[in-house]
């Protein structure tokens, strides 16, 4: 088999039928371009959602799950008796993490832990004049919280320092502040479910770009919240932990649970919906892309088949003059390969162009997501995959017609 002559013949065949070659190429081009665009966009969405979820939530959250289910005493004593109990009150259980601050100190010293923020979180009502909105308030050590969530970059107005110097300060989610119609320096009444009330001053607003946070959450000093709740200075309800490697959080969370006996929730569990959505989007991307490529493959198969039929006399002449089956396969497979490769390359360029256009298309996600254009990832590996898929498809589509060409019986053709 001589690839040089085979490629020379293949090139001549392709150039002789330029339009047909172009049509076959465009099939691959379209398939690859769509593949690139779709995968870049879908992965962009995945990455964006994952990032915003991961940024705004702790890798591990440790808290005391208040479990109020308990059987009545009489049920415990006489499980088979005919027991009727009305209005059994649940047990009063505190959400407190016992020795929480000491636990936080221990966890902070462990390797692989990026930062720990012990905090006290509770439901509240925010009142400003006639407006009443429910939300949450987190009493935090703002420096520690900043290390976990990079709050400085999330601030829309005010400063973190203002919270440290003002015991009655409040840094509020930007959407919540807008709904309450408060600005920097305005006062808000905070009412706890337990009855405590306090007037706090807005010293800053933040936006994570995640609706559930920006809509409801405020930060205050840990001591202030303890005071409103009338608790002692060691009372905390949550420990937020960030790891250096988020993937380690899942195992580490389980270890913490057995170590301290408190409930832990890792980011993967907390964001199951996002991760499931990610899997579905990935699946969708591959299904659509492979369908497109298979369609392109059939296009090439048809065109190559037609070429073989058109060239059947030439094949017979070539075989008569000493070209063997492998040469013939090479001639037609090289044509398919050329179509796949150039069509694929063109597809990569067009795919890049489409992805780029998508990435600058304005997209208003409202308050829910903090993006202005569609999220798109430009990763070289997708382009490599696209080209590989394109070539594999065309080689498969070209192989069968080539083999048919190799099996042409020259005698029956040449006898006329």
């Amino acid at each position, binding site marked *: 088999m001589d690839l040089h002559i085979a490629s020379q013949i293949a090139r001549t065949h392709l150039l002789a039928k330029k339009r047909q070659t172009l049509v076959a190429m465009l099939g691959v081009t379209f398939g690859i371009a769509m593949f690139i665009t779709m995968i870049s966009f879908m992965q962009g969405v995945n990455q964006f959602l994952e990032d915003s979820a991961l940024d705004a939530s702790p890798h591990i959250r440790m808290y005391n799950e208040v479990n109020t289910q308990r059987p009545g005493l009489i049920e415990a004593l006489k499980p088979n008796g005919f027991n009727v109990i009305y209005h059994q009150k649940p047990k009063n259980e505190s959400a407190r993490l016992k020795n929480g601050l000491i636990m936080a100190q221990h966890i902070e010293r462990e390797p692989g832990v990026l930062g720990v923020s012990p905090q006290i979180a509770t439901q509240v009502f925010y009142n400003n004049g006639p407006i009443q909105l429910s939300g949450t308030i987190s009493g935090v050590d703002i420096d520690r919280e900043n290390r976990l969530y990079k709050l400085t970059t999330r601030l829309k107005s005010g400063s973190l320092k203002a919270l440290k110097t003002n015991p009655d300060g409040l840094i509020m989610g930007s959407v919540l502040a807008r709904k309450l119609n408060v600005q920097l320096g305005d006062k808000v009444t905070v009412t706890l479910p337990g009855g405590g009330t306090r007037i706090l001053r807005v010293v800053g607003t933040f936006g994570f770009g995640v609706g559930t946070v920006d809509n409801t959450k405020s930060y205050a000093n840990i001591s202030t919240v303890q005071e409103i709740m009338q608790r002692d200075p060691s009372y905390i309800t949550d420990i937020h932990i960030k790891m250096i490697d988020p993937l380690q959080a899942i195992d580490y969370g389980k270890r913490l649970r057995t170590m301290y006996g408190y409930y832990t929730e890792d980011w993967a569990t907390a964001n199951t919906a996002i991760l499931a959505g990610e899997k579905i989007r990935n699946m969708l991307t591959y299904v659509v892309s492979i369908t497109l490529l298979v369609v392109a493959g059939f296009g090439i198969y048809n065109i190559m088949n037609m070429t073989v039929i058109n060239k059947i006399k030439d094949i017979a002449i070539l075989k008569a*003059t000493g070209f063997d089956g492998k040469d013939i396969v090479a001639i037609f497979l090289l044509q398919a390969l050329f179509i796949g490769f150039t069509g694929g390359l063109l597809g990569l360029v067009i795919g890049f162009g489409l992805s780029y256009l998508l990435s600058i298309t304005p997209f208003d996600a409202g308050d829910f997501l903090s993006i202005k254009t569609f999220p798109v990832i430009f990763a070289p590996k997708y382009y490599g995959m696209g080209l590989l898929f394109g070539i594999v498809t065309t080689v498969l589509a070209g192989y069968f017609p080539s083999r048919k060409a190799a099996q042409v019986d020259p005698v029956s053709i040449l006898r006329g």
Partner: protein
Amino acid sequence: MMSTVLSARHLNKYFYDPDKFQVLKDITFDVQSGEFLAIVGKSGCGKSTLLYLLSTMDTDYDGQVEMAGTTLTGRNQDFLARFRNEHLGFVFQFHFLLPEFSVLQNVMLPGLKLGKYPEKVVEERAMEKLRLIGMADYARKPASKLSGGQQQRVAIARALINDPTIIMGDEPTGNLDRANSENVFAIFRDLAAKGQTIIAVTHDPDFAAGTDRVIEMSDGMIINGHETKDRQAN
């Protein structure tokens, strides 16, 4: 100086479609080096079948074919392709050249496939063969632009490119007008005079009369394998 370049021994061939039918019946003959041989006979007598069988492209037969000291019966396709490339040149009745290629490329292709000489040398040799048949001026023209007669002459140049042991022609003048037929025949005659072995199937009596030896076939058998008179006179 005469040596046997082709020997066919007891060749039998059957067609199975639509019914079993014996096309060739116990064909045995030899071809000497430098012979210009014509196989004649009525349509359907099996002369073309015999030629394609000798050409190694048809391997479905009983008997034995030996060419240039090599037994060709029972070889695999790749070996036979290689053998055709090196030892055989073909001139067909209908299909002459590859239309997308230039005249020169058509002539060069089997030479490039053989790979005996570098491309430059093959090109020179191809030009030389084209000069021999008087087509050198058309070397750069696309093959599809040539007339049938011109294409057939180029096909002869292509057959010659690897200095084959035997040139085989299946009705080489069958599809040409009188002037072109004579032209092509003149080239064959010329080659034969230079010692080239040629086997041609033909039903053109003028063509057959000009050859050294005529094998006449009927119903799959050789009925007459005489040498023409002028050869005997030599």
